[in-house]
């Protein structure tokens, strides 16, 4: 099975080609959607097979590389088209193909009747292929194909409704911001390649080879430089400060896209990349700290914005940014396993949340459409009390919300708690850890608050939709609800495979599974970790309890404000109008970026073009020509037509020449 790993990206590629080339002719939505879904499902089956095979192998042998064909061999540089299967990529494969299949299925229902139906499925397949390449890449360059490929698909899918200007803008923004990250990624690659090559004559970008040689890397120094570059790449892809603004805008795409790309898979690429290169990152304590701090800051920053948004998808988008911050926090404190664990559980519940919101929007849209109204189908202020009309959606949504809020027993609790605990306990950053933990806790509180705010505003209370169309509200079809139910179930139970040892009910399968991947990193980490501060179980229990309390506080505030006392939000905003406005406007980050980068670039470009290029550069060229012409006009004037002038010219010539020679 392992040998057939190439089938995994191949199936979606086939799907893409079929739908992309012939989709327009096929026309039948069931066939198109069927092909798309089937292809990714086949990949899922192959992934399962590979997982089984891996499980059957002894842990230390669970690394397999498959070279397809040589790609770029130039001088000492060598990059093959090669795939790497190890426990880490296996996990990602399962997430991508599994969640991907569900979302494909969901899309059949959700996208029903859309104009570019075939286009959508083609893109979706293409995306899956790219994501799988990213995950499977055995060297940085193959990973980079996927890395940019997902960016491309994200661009295509965000711009799916290309007739809307905002969609086009958002797509472009997403791509460009990703490009900024890619720039970092490339630089990181260059630095690493150069360092290994010029110092140890190891010219490689292959992960396995780098890992084998990673003991040569020094701590800090050039590694810090390289990893910081890589981290820039990660911030672009995973929407961390300062490159996070594209993600909320990306909600212009259809909802399944948000679920698949901007929640479950693509945005986690940065996290995955750090995990993939954990053995390099851990050698750069400064970078680790930066990662942790940026992660924590993003977590809280996005969470604050999330509290003030009214668009249902936007809240989820900021929530995604915030949760990605948690993952980076985990990476930054060396809790790679925990980060990946959170990545997985987040994929379940966030996909479920997005799909749920999609279901809500779908229903709202349908209803509004029937009633010929043009109200915003995504604005929570138009919703309320939908639990009756959309029971399945409501239940799955609620389960996922509880999961994200971190209520024990649900998946999000296990993963988030693990992160917070390791942030507190891991010895890498000294006393900074406490601060990180604190920020994490506050962010968690905010998370619980805004998520429940969302649930309350959407599903509870009385229905604020225009009464005319109330009757049209009804539950979505089965293709939509089945994925919801599956994901809701996973959001509920998915955490148990990574249950902390402390609770003791199950062994932490997940961590054991990933152990071979991160072993080396942990080994390196010990070299500079502050000497084994061993924390007691009691402390761990205590913190766990604390995080639950925090979550509950968040929920209760939400309940107070949006269920019990509905005038509170009003009062709050009028009490702090400035703060509210700033938060509501996302801290004006977009505007600041416009001011700092976009506008100067444009005006500088204009200046260069109209000022420099046309006036100076071309001016010199044309000016030379004009000068010559003026000279010409002057010389021409000497040619007066008078014989005596000509004779005079000759005589002066003779006299001058003689003068020069005679009197020299």
């Amino acid at each position, binding site marked *: 099975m392992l040998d057939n790993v190439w089938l995994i990206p191949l199936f979606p590629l086939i799907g893409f080609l079929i739908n992309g080339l012939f989709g327009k002719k096929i026309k039948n939505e069931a066939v198109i959607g069927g092909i798309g879904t089937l292809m990714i499902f086949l990949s899922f089956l192959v992934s399962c097979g590979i997982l089984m095979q891996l499980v059957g192998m002894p842990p230390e042998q669970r690394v397999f590389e498959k070279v397809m064909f040589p790609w770029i061999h130039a001088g000492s540089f060598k990059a093959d088209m090669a795939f790497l299967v190890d426990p880490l990529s296996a996990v990602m494969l399962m997430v991508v193909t599994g969640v991907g299949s569900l979302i494909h299925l969901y899309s059949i229902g959700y996208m029903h009747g859309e104009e570019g139906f075939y286009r959508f499925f083609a893109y979706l397949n293409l995306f899956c292929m790219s994501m799988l390449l990213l995950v499977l890449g055995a060297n940085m360059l193959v990973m980079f194909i996927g890395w940019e490929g997902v960016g491309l698909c994200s661009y295509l899918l965000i711009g799916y409704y290309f007739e809307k200007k905002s969609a086009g803008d958002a797509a472009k923004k997403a791509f460009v911001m990703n490009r900024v990250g890619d720039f970092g990624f490339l630089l990181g690659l260059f630095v690493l390649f150069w360092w290994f090559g010029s110092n140890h004559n190891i010219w490689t970008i292959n992960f396995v080879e780098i890992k084998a040689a990673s003991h040569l890397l020094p701590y800090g120094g050039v590694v810090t430089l390289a990893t910081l570059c890589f981290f820039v790449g990660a911030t672009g892809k995973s929407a961390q400060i300062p490159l996070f603004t594209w993600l909320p805008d990306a909600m212009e795409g259809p909802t399944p896209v948000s679920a698949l790309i901007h929640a479950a898979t693509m945005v986690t690429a940065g996290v995955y990349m750090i995990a993939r290169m954990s053995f390099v990152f851990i050698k750069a304590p400064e970078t680790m700290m930066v990662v942790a701090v940026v992660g924590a800051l993003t977590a809280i920053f996005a969470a604050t914005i999330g509290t003030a948004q009214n668009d249902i998808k936007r809240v989820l988008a900021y929530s995604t940014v915030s949760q990605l911050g948690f993952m980076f926090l985990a990476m930054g404190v060396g809790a790679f396993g925990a980060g990946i664990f959170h990545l997985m559980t987040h994929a379940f519940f966030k996909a479920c949340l997005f799909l749920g919101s999609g279901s809500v929007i779908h229903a709202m849209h349908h209803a509004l459409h029937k009633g010929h109204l043009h109200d915003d189908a995504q604005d929570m202020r138009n919703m309320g009390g939908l639990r009756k009309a959309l029971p399945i959606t409501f239940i799955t949504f609620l389960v996922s919300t509880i999961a994200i809020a971190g209520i024990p027993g649900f998946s999000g609790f296990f993963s988030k708690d693990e992160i917070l605990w390791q942030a507190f306990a891991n010895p890498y950053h000294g006393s900074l850890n406490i601060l990180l933990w604190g920020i994490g806790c506050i962010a968690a509180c905010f998370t619980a608050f805004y998520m429940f705010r969302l649930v309350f505003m959407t599903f509870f209370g009385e229905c604020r939709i225009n009464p005319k169309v109330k009757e049209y509200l009804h539950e979505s079809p089965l293709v939509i609800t089945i994925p919801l139910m599956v994901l809701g179930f996973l959001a509920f139970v998915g955490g148990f495979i990574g249950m902390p040892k402390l609770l003791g009910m199950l062994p932490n399968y997940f961590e054991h599974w990933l152990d071979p991947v991160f072993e080396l990193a942990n080994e390196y980490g010990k070299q500079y970790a502050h000497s084994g501060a061993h924390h007691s179980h009691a402390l761990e229990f205590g913190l766990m309890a604390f995080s639950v309390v925090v979550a509950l506080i968040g929920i209760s505030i939400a309940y107070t404000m949006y269920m019990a006392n509905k005038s509170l939000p009003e009062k709050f905003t009028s009490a702090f109008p400035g703060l509210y406005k700033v938060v509501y406007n996302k801290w004006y980050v977009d505007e600041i970026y416009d001011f700092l980068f976009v506008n100067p670039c444009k005006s500088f470009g204009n200046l260069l073009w109209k000022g420099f290029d046309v006036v100076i550069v071309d001016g010199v060229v044309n000016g030379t*020509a004009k000068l010559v012409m003026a000279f*010409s006009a002057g010389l*021409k004037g*000497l040619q007066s037509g008078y*014989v005596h002038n000509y*004779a005079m010219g000759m005589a002066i010539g003779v006299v001058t*020449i003689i003068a020069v020679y005679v009197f020299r």
Partner: protein
Amino acid sequence: MDTIAIPAINLAVIAPEVVLSVVAMALLLINVFVKSEQKGYLGYLSIAGILGTLLMLIPAWGSSVEGFSGTIIQDNFAIFFKVIFLISAAMSILITDKYLEREGCNQGEIYPLILFATVGMMLMASGTDLMTIFLGLEVLSVSLYVLAGFNRNNIKSNEAGLKYFLLGAFSTGFLLYGMALTYGATGTTKIAKIASYIAMNGVSSSNLMLVAGMILMSTGFAFKVAAAPFHMWTPDVYEGAPTPMTAFMSVGPKAAGFAAFARVLLVALPALKPEWSSLLWVLAVLTMTVGNITALYQQNIKRMLAYSSIAHAGYILVGFTAGNAVGTAGILFYMLSYAFMNIGAFAIIILVGKKGEENSNVSDYAGFGYRHPVLGIAFCIFLFSLAGIPPAAGFIGKFYLFSGAIQAGYIWLAVIGVLNSAASVYYYLRVMVFMYFKEPTEDFEWVKLTPAFVLCLLIAVIGVLVPGVLPGLFLELAQKAVLM
């Protein structure tokens, strides 16, 4: 009283000149009996004479024969130039007939005059005595004064003739003074003796009389080849003269001037090389620059080509400055190709022109390339060759000229030369801009495209393209004709 011992007259040395003169005189006689509308036949007869002369030159190639007590020589150098003169004369004659008919001044004397001018040029090329050279130059000049003013009903032609005459006579004064001073400094007028005297007595640049003689002679020749600042007559005379004669004047006499110039400087005064090469350096730069730059502004195509011919004199001076084998071979090759390309271009100008020299503005050529595609292509070939763009012969010629300069270490001169060349591209292109890039505004009136014209153009095109693509043979000949 002693009998005069007349030296052995080696007629073979001057056979070409004699044949041509005889033909010319015969034509003068025949002319009396030919009706006005049939004067064209005289042209064909004169071409026959030219061909005969050419045939006489061929067996002489490779030998170097002196004659008449060392006043004349027939060497490869002279022969090569004579071929150029004859070709330019023949091609000019081919395009003369119809022009004269159109302008209404169809007099048969023009053909003998052209032939006499050619004889003068040939004497200049092979003269080895300052007197021979001077007389050859005067034969040429006097014929040219007449030819320039030949269309005597046309005021422009009158003016051209008179201007040329006055300034020519003036420059003759300087030339003669130079010759006198040289004579005084060396005691002889024979070129070989001048050289040997200088070599033996070690006269050098410290002898101001010799230097002054060199300078004054140079100015005389510079006038003939239209080098700045002695070029100022050129545009006016070229513009005013009948167009076929302009074509003739811009090639043959220029070549003759260079031939004599080269013989005097290279053979008689090699000892003064540092002096004259620095003088020529300056003249070359001035000439190229003034010619090209002023040409940029011209609207009248004849005048433009006049300035362009000044510029070309400048390029040739570059090769001359070098004073080495490559440069001199370059002069020879360039003059040959210049004959083809320039006369070809003037042939087209005659075709496009109307009576009274109308229609000779660059803007009159709008759309010409579409109305007459074949002529258009031919014109383009000539212009590209003038601009020095491969694979035309003009490029190879320039290549050799500049190579000579570079070999002699005058790299900056070569650089100035190529920059000038680049500037010149503009005005040649400008003609093409009108020919192809603008829509035609009017129909082109025709001097009917006679076989003679076709022949002339054909020769010109072949003469531009063949030495351009396969220059080997021609360059080899030029190399063998070099004076050193």
